[in-house]
């Protein structure tokens, strides 16, 4: 194998599994250390810079970082990264003096954002400090998008939305709320230098089976129902409720139903329990609220009498895999299953809809009727129009909306300055030794043996009684400290200098995880099997260094390194050093040329 180029900007970034997996590349271990140090406001600001909505995300993020977290590979559970983010938000105190403020010299450019969801708000936050005038339209009366209209208040209190949406509003957004855009052409005709479409994926899929029309009064589309609940138009539901669908919307529907009068709420999914789209913790939360999840049942008909819904019938199916390994749901032949109910919530998927974008507005649409959007620049085929969030590539989540917003803001800024949007500014990387003394580091390298701590919950009876009572209470400072200590500090990199190495094996002998091997070089596949422990996780790199006296190579499997620094402590020559790798992701306004 060739020696690893550790100067390459992604190499060490990939080692920080959580940060690499985060769409916005939040510097997770850096903020976790600040939480452990009780520096909540500093931890908050690191988050705010990267992901714009730390309080919201600390409660609701899809947390792609957690399945990626190294801790989950060295013991049972990853670090509770998401809930630590909430700790920063909960205990930060007043941070208003750290925010950019509205007092910025205007640059004369005007940008319109369609929709006031997280994607548009991110664009606004990134562009306002550069002097842009950002006009944000939304059909709803208040900003927040689905954060406000969909996510139930027992998961995300309104005050948190108000606070974090407010920070951006205070930076000088020009709001045009309560104004639905019904023509892109019309908007293009106004004197905007660029248009950002952050209108989300607002249409819930329906289920067209017998009885749908007849029993329509008690059949509701999940996301429409949730927004009616969120805005207070609906405050009760029947005693017996069936929720169709296995995604997070279904979980919000069933849990909301429990709070609005549903005593017997059941979730019914077509496929298997394990294949459900909902995050595992959402399923747990639903089941903890006495909501059974019935699987392998395909809806057959809505049953009704005299125009009133009485129940639903389902066919029982099983998963059969064909020779290509494809799964088919095949009827078992058992009698149909009938479940009586008073209301049904249909949460079987969400779609984009752009009725307001004329097909001759100079924008290409693909065969799925989605706008053609560049995945890096977020630019559509009309150079003046950019997309982001759920509107760009279909429904995702808040953190992706934020990431798209950052990318689009870079593009819009470059576009407005007449620069090539495909050329992207580089990220700012700093790497610095953490050595403080012979065996002293500026981070806590002692590895905690604790398992993941559970976030305390509100009393169930109280929570189920009021849809606005937040279920999760968040970590207190003591639990937060202990959970933060579980983080392995994956950004503190093991950096090897071959010319200092005397090949004494001290690092090999001390390493608790058998990461380090000195051996003859070879092809990667062969080398991976010859190490102190086989390197079977192909998503994790081998760090290769040559230039040793014996002509062997040093091969370090990054996979399960604890970043404990023991290799560096036991190295007599300082050939190993622990260096903090910080990457500041490029934001709008950053320059492309480094000079």
């Amino acid at each position: 194998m060739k020696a690893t180029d550790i100067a390459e900007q992604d190499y060490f970034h990939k080692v920080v599994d959580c940060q690499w997996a985060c769409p916005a590349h939040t510097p997770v271990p850096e903020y976790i250390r600040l939480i452990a140090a009780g520096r909540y406001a500093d931890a908050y600001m690191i988050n705010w810079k990267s992901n714009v909505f730390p309080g919201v995300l600390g409660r609701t993020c899809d947390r792609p970082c957690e399945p990626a977290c190294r801790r989950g590979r060295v013991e049972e559970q990853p670090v509770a990264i998401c809930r630590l983010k909430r700790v920063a938000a909960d205990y930060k105190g007043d941070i208003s003096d750290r925010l950019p403020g509205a007092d910025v010299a205007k640059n004369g450019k005007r940008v319109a954002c369609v929709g006031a969801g997280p994607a548009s708000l991110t664009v606004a936050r990134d562009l306002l400090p550069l002097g842009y005038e950002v006009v944000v339209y939304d059909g709803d009366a208040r900003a927040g998008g689905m954060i406000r209209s969909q996510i139930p208040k027992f998961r995300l209190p309104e005050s948190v939305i108000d606070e974090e949406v407010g920070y951006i509003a205070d930076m000088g957004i020009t709001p045009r709320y309560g104004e639905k855009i019904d023509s892109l052409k019309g908007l293009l005709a106004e004197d905007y230098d660029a248009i950002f479409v952050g209108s989300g994926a607002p249409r819930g899929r329906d289920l067209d089976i017998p009885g749908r029309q007849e029993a329509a009064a008690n059949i509701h589309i999940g996301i429409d129902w949730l927004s009616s609940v969120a805005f207070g138009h609906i405050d009760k539901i029947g005693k017996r409720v069936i929720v169709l669908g296995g995604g997070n919307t279904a979980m919000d529907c069933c849990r909301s139903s429990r709070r609005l009068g549903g005593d017997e709420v059941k979730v019914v999914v077509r496929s298997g329990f394990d294949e459900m789209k909902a995050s595992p913790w959402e399923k747990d939360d639903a089941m903890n609220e006495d909501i059974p999840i019935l699987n392998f049942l395909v809806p057959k008909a809505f049953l009704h009498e005299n125009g009133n819904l009485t129940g639903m019938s389902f066919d029982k199916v099983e998963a059969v895999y064909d020779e290509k390994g494809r799964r088919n749901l095949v009827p078992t032949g058992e009698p149909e299953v009938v479940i009586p109910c008073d209301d049904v919530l249909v949460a079987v998927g969400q779609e984009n809809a752009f009725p307001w974008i004329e097909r001759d507005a100079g924008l290409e649409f693909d065969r799925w009727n989605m706008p053609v959007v560049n995945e890096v620049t977020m630019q559509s085929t009309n150079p003046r129009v950019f997309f982001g969030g759920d509107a760009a590539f279909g429904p995702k989540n808040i953190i992706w909306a934020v990431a798209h917003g950052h990318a689009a803001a870079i593009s819009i800024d470059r576009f407005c300055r007449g620069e090539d949007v495909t050329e992207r500014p580089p990220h700012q990387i700093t790497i610095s030794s953490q050595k403080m003394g012979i065996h002293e580091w500026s981070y806590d390298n002692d590895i905690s043996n604790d398992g993941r701590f559970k976030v305390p919950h509100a009393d169930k009876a109280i929570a189920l009684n009021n849809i606005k009572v937040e279920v999760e209470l968040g970590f207190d400072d003591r639990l937060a400290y202990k959970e933060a200590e579980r983080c392995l500090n994956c950004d503190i990199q093991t950096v090897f200098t071959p010319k200092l190495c005397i090949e004494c094996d001290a690092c090999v002998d001390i390493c608790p995880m058998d990461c380090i091997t000195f051996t003859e070089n070879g092809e990667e596949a062969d080398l991976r099997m010859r190490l102190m422990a086989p390197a079977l996780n192909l998503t994790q790199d081998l760090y290769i260094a040559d230039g040793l006296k014996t002509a062997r190579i040093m091969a370090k499997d990054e996979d399960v390194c604890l970043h404990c620094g023991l290799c560096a402590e036991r190295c007599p020559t300082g050939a190993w050093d622990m260096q903090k790798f910080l990457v500041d992701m490029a934001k709008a306004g950053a320059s492309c040329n480094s000079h």
Partner: protein
Amino acid sequence: MTFITKPKLHHPKLPTNHLGFTRRDYEGAVSTLCAGCGHDSISAAIIQACFELAIEPHRIAKLSGIGCSSKTPTYFLGNSHGFNSVHGRMPSVLTGANMANRDLIYLGVSGDGDSASIGLGQFAHSIRRGVNMVYIVENNGVYGLTKGQFSATSDRGSKSKRGVPNNDEAIDLVSMALQLGATYVGRSFSGDKAQLVPLIKGALLHQGAAFIDCVSPCVAFNNHLGSTKSFDYVREHNDAVNRLDIIPERSEIVTDYEPGQTQTVTQHDGSMIRLHKLTPEYDPQDRVGAMNFLQQRYALGEIVTGLLYLDPEPRDLHAYLNTSATPFNELGEAELCPGPDALEKFNASLR
């Protein structure tokens, strides 16, 4: 010195032996030796050897004297018996313990100062008595613990860190062990675990006096240019006569060496030592030949390593003394103190 304890977490794919232990279960406390000390690598090799042989930790007694090397038993086999004796007296304590309980595996760990200076007589007598043990000298050519004075194994002409040469002739413990009748003699290097681990395994299985001289650079006081016990010098002058595999009793033999280059020796307990010859003319069952070979190569400035001598049918001190087959701690009071009548009878037999 490292202040944190070694994390309990280990590699998820770390193998277990048939006792269900991982290699990590054979570790001890975190080393307090200088970072990079060769002795730590020998500790790691001992851990690996005991793991691979699936020895129950409570069946080992580790004994040592004084010195950095003699401190190391704290850093391996944390669940075994241990005795840290006074300087140079490990062999006597080990001999006594062995006499009292022949059922344990005795692992003596010493330094070149501990064994070749103050303990030279003790070393010599434990070997010539054929005590069933593994005796490892972690040989760095200096008194590491007392800050680097030349030891008796330091080669004539070898230079101290300040550049002062050693004028005294070196004691070669391997030659002495051969001459004194050790039945398993090897030399290795802390920086070559591929050779050292099987050498230790063979010694642990050997039922007689097994001696291993392991060159182990002292990074603090004897790893400079001009030293003959530095990492660089040993790597350049290492003349390995063989490599070995240890095949415990009843295991299947898997050969991956060219025929003709290998030699299999079956030890008394049924285990086999498979030698891969690097120097074809070297015969590790020829004691006199081995002594001659060592002297010749030493004169050329080479450090001969490998399994240097093996007597597959060793006898040990218990056999010479015709002692009880049952260890003392399993004998009852009646057997240990048979009473005045028995004493009278015994005395009468001597009259």
